[in-house]
């Protein structure tokens, strides 16, 4: 049974702080940051670039409908509080993960949407990777398409950012690989026939041809962890939010591409 050889975050946190490495500054030099879009064939790029052809837009259309739908509880629809998403949600997704003051922890966009639905709409929880939650998240994230990724420069997020970097750079799994081994040190080279991308989270939720459907960043990270023969964290584990926070910092200022298409 695979056993992930994970270094516990607090130890690594201390080591990183002692080493003097700036938190969140690692990864790839800003001028060299590239989206996975650049690695794809012209055909798949065209699929993403044409809203009439992009299969992710089917989910976005579902999300638009959900945005306007009144919940059974009688509380307002999303539109009822936030207005037209094109206005109210403009640029929002680019600034996630963010600090959740209510629960004193970082929260990703999907988590924030779920929290809002449960607390303010009295709506039942949507399961992870459910088509409704993905559709709503994709619709909201679309309103940031083209905006530079800019996770908040909030000091309360720093510990999670450092933890995310430790997760990214720490060796794990049966193969003793870290994310950084491939995505920092060997992006642009090939692993077999596949070109190694930088692993930028610019287009989530995205339509992955391998899934034949839309999926979240957490799903993709779980795929990676499994592929590295490490234990994936449970859905909604704080590790994913920490990783996403680090990835977003590492990606800035690449633009949001949701809904992206990827092989």
């Amino acid at each position, binding site marked *: 049974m695979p056993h992930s050889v994970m270094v516990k975050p607090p130890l690594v946190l201390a080591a990183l702080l002692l080493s003097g490495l700036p938190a969140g500054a690692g990864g790839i030099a800003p001028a060299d940051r590239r989206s996975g879009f650049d690695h794809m064939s012209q055909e798949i790029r065209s699929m993403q670039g*044409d*809203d*009439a*052809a992009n*299969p992710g*837009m*089917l*989910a976005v*259309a*579902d999300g638009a409908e959900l945005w306007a739908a009144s919940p059974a509880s009688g509380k307002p629809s999303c539109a009822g509080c936030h207005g037209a998403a094109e206005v109210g949600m403009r640029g929002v997704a680019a600034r996630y993960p963010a600090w959740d003051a209510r629960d004193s922890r970082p929260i990703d966009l999907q988590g924030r949407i779920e929290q809002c639905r449960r607390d303010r709409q009295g709506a039942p929880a949507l399961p992870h990777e459910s088509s409704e939650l993905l559709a709503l998240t994709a619709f909201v994230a679309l309103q940031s398409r083209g905006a530079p990724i800019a996770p908040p420069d909030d000091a309360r997020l720093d510990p999670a950012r450092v933890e995310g970097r430790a997760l990214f750079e720490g060796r794990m799994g049966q193969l003793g690989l870290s994310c950084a081994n491939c995505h920092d040190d060997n992006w642009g080279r090939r692993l077999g026939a596949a070109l190694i991308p930088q692993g930028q989270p610019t287009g989530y939720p995205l339509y992955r041809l391998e899934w*034949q*459907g839309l999926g979240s960043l957490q799903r993709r990270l779980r795929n990676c962890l499994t592929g590295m023969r490490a234990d994936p964290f449970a859905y909604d584990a704080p590790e994913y939010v920490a990783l996403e926070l680090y990835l977003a910092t590492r990606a800035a200022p690449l633009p949001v591409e949701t809904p992206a298409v990827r092989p």
Partner: protein
Amino acid sequence: MARALINLPKTAKPGDVVTIKTLLSHPMETGFRPGPDGRILPRNIVTEFVCHFEGDEVFRAELYPASAANPYLTFTWVATRSGSFTFTWRGDNGFDQTETAVIAVS
């Protein structure tokens, strides 16, 4: 009702060749693929797509398991006069869905 996205211009001039793009949310389960328990998942595909303009057939496609999930079909039409298109998808398990769109030609 499956989500359908139809893209065609709202207006055209007579003689223009217009491209119509259609996209339907549908798993197009091939009937050849095993599920997690190892048993083959039953086939569930769209088998036919047909487009009519003002009642006349304009384009028809027979689809097979080799069509990708969320079927995407594009075709062309010479604008002659204003009117309505209907787009119908039919398939396994009684799948039968029609969408409409209008075009103004002048």
